[in-house]
């Protein structure tokens, strides 16, 4: 059981380049999330999805796009990379939004992106 898998772990981009951060989970979770983590700033929600075919913006969506064609995969797309997008990106998932001791966010190990 791999949980949430993110690729790549590290990437350096030049300004204006595009790339996709991959995220896949094998827990059959309906809800998936993308966060970015900047030093001293905690985790900011970029986009989330409540199921295949449904996505919604979070707190900081500008410069990013997502898609959710399957339950397992939730890729994050950067179209025109900017230095402000230098960050560590975390994908997370959970089964539902109900109150339950087992219904917790499971995070991937993160993808560190540097835009020069």
């Amino acid at each position: 059981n791999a949980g949430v898998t993110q690729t790549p772990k590290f990437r350096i981009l030049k300004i204006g380049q595009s790339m996709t951060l991959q995220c896949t989970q094998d827990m059959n979770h309906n809800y998936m999330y993308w966060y970015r983590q900047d030093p001293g700033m905690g985790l900011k929600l970029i986009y989330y999805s409540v199921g295949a075919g449904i996505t919604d913006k979070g707190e900081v969506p500008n410069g990013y796009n997502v898609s959710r064609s399957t339950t397992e995969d939730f890729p994050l797309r950067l179209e025109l990379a900017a230095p402000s997008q230098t960050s560590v990106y975390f994908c997370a998932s959970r089964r539902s939004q109900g109150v339950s001791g087992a219904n917790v966010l499971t995070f991937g190990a993160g993808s560190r992106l540097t835009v020069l």
Partner: protein
Amino acid sequence: QQQVKQSPQSLIVQKGGISIINCAYENTAFDYFPWYQQFPGKGPALLIAIRPDVSEKKEGRFTISFNKSAKQFSLHIMDSQPGDSATYFCAAPISSGSARQLTFGSGTQLTVLP
């Protein structure tokens, strides 16, 4: 924008001491309030969580105290150990768009000295 204010930003404690981290939140969805622990190079992992209808929850050396009227909750680590050195995040659920979301605090970097 929903705010979750966490303090202190950093904390240094001697081995065996008590570590206390505080969080304050604004209006929130009635759900649960988690604390996440993050080691360098890793993603956050759930440490302990509390439902808002109880005032305290204890799991081993970790305790959450919850004050609903004050909209505050705190994490207490008893007998702190060097292995507890990590970044801790509190979070509060909000209702927005099509799902409840977790809004995270800015994190507390805990260092436990041997």
